[in-house]
């Protein structure tokens, strides 16, 4: 199908909304009725037709508006995009990976024509048509990483691999769940994960790192992570927390269905060939509670997960104060019936809601 790009906002008047198509393909992150941190990684080699797993870099109806929001964030705060000097080669690797993937996966939207190092890139949704010389920084308006990620949904961390660790030495981060690239840049895997509760003690990061260090060219991986956001605000940054934090107190029993969003990150991992770096795209999807309740299985499951979530996690994810109100809302959608395994909606096979 051709995608109808929406004209919408992720701030101020918050006109963001999901179409039915976007709701049905929403990456619901819970495969069972409870949740705990785990080394939940699998191969990223496609998925069911139309799902967010199908393409290497998913493009959806929010694409054009998300890119506009990113440009606004960067204009306010250029430190959201940084690349230490030794990461330029990895930036070119990333540019190549995205241009090749998107032009192959969405030939009607993106075109890449290569003649040696003379490249011609056409991005129809954003109206971009640029010719440049591959590996020549002077031929692009931004550095290679910034150039391509201003045209790709999701945040990107580019990790240098050395000394049996990964180092966050480059990235563009404008749709984050409350962490700062400017602060974390230069840290290693254990350091940037330092604030996460429980997972260090469970040995999750040691095992996850071993897995990541061995990710090979041509064999990308993925996982889902999630949190909660009040209003469809993409830029929940620590930088602006003193401005948006107050919105968390604006929930009422009347507006929670529209205002409270489940925020899911589709995180993927690709080995970059020329630099041996690893790229970590973090693609955020938002769905309001009202959106999610259209799928009976998700309604039941979300209630059970949020109800039983350990306090440490609800605190870390920043919704401990709002949890009682969420549960009041969610419990109305949990009729106690069983749920099927896995994340898919299963509208035809799971029981209808009472």
């Amino acid at each position, binding site marked *: 199908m051709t995608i109808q790009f929406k004209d919408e906002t992720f701030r101020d008047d918050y006109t963001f909304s999901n179409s039915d198509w976007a709701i049905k393909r929403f990456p619901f992150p819970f495969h069972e009725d409870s949740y705990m941190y785990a080394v939940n990684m699998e191969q990223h080699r496609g998925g069911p037709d139309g799902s967010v797993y199908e393409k290497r870099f998913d493009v959806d109806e929010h694409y054009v508006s998300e890119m506009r929001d990113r440009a606004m964030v960067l204009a306010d705060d250029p430190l959201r995009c940084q690349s230490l000097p030794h990461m330029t080669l990895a930036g070119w690797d990333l540019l190549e990976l995205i241009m090749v993937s998107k032009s192959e996966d969405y030939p009607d939207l993106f075109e890449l024509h290569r003649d040696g190092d003379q490249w011609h890139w056409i991005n129809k949704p954003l109206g971009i048509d640029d010719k440049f010389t591959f590996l020549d920084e002077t031929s692009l308006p931004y550095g290679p990483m910034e150039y391509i990620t201003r045209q790709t949904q999701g945040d990107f961390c580019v990790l240098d691999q050395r000394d049996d660790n990964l180092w966050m030495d480059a990235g563009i981060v404008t749709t984050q769940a409350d962490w*700062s690239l400017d*602060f*974390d840049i*230069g840290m290693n895997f*254990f350091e940037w994960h*330092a604030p996460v509760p429980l997972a260090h003690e469970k040995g999750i990061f040691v095992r996850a790192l071993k897995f990541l260090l061995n990710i090979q060219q041509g064999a990308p991986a993925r996982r889902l992570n999630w949190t909660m956001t009040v209003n469809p605000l993409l830029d929940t940054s620590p930088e602006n*927390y003193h401005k948006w*934090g*107050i919105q968390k*107190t604006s929930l009422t029993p009347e507006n929670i269905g529209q205002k409270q969003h489940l925020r899911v990150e589709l995180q993927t991992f690709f080995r970059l060939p020329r630099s041996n770096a690893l790229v970590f795209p973090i693609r955020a999807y938002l769905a309001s509670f009202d959106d999610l309740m259209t799928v009976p299985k998700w309604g039941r499951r979300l209630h059970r997960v949020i109800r039983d979530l350990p306090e440490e996690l609800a605190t870390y994810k920043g919704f401990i104060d709002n949890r009682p109100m969420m549960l009041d809302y969610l419990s109305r959608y949990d009729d106690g019936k069983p749920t099927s395994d896995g994340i898919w909606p299963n509208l035809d096979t799971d029981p209808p809601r009472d």
Partner: protein
Amino acid sequence: MSKFEFPEAIKSRPTYGTLEARPGKAHLFVADAEGAEAIIDLAKADSGLMAKSHVIYIPKDTGDKFVSQLQDLGINQLYVGPSFEAAQTRLQRSLADAHMGLQVYLCGTEGLMGQAQRDAMAAGIPHTAIQTEHRGSVARRMQCVHCKGITEDVMTDPFVCSHCGLNLFVRDHYSRRLAAFQGVCIDAEDPGNVPPSAELYS
């Protein structure tokens, strides 16, 4: 001299050891205030070391207390300066000229060690190869995550950002690149509701 035992904290928070003499032709020390005592202790343990050493020392509020003791150690090159900022170009110049095998020793407050470590890393020494020993004040160098301004020598939690004036709480999350801990607005969700400040580690 007793040393402060920092409680166990998250993995980005630096930890400090006790300086020991390492093999190498050249040795560079950067110290402030009570950090001088760590050098004096090391000189006692290894008498030959000081003749191969360059020491950059910032007395801060200890004044002359340790200066004459340092002068008696037979240090090859001793510089006593008024502030880290004043000494920084000197440090960078020494690093620019240095060769592989240079040993770097940092001692004193976290703020000083962090900033000197940053310069040493920029010159190509991995942070794990730089020795550190904490002495003296437990004050922290804080970055305001909102305005990015640095507030030096923070002794209380919460504190007021010296640049933008927001009330910030003191996190253990630490950036070597910024040589600073992170300060985050404490009353964002309830403006004006700021708990009373308490001294760090009190």
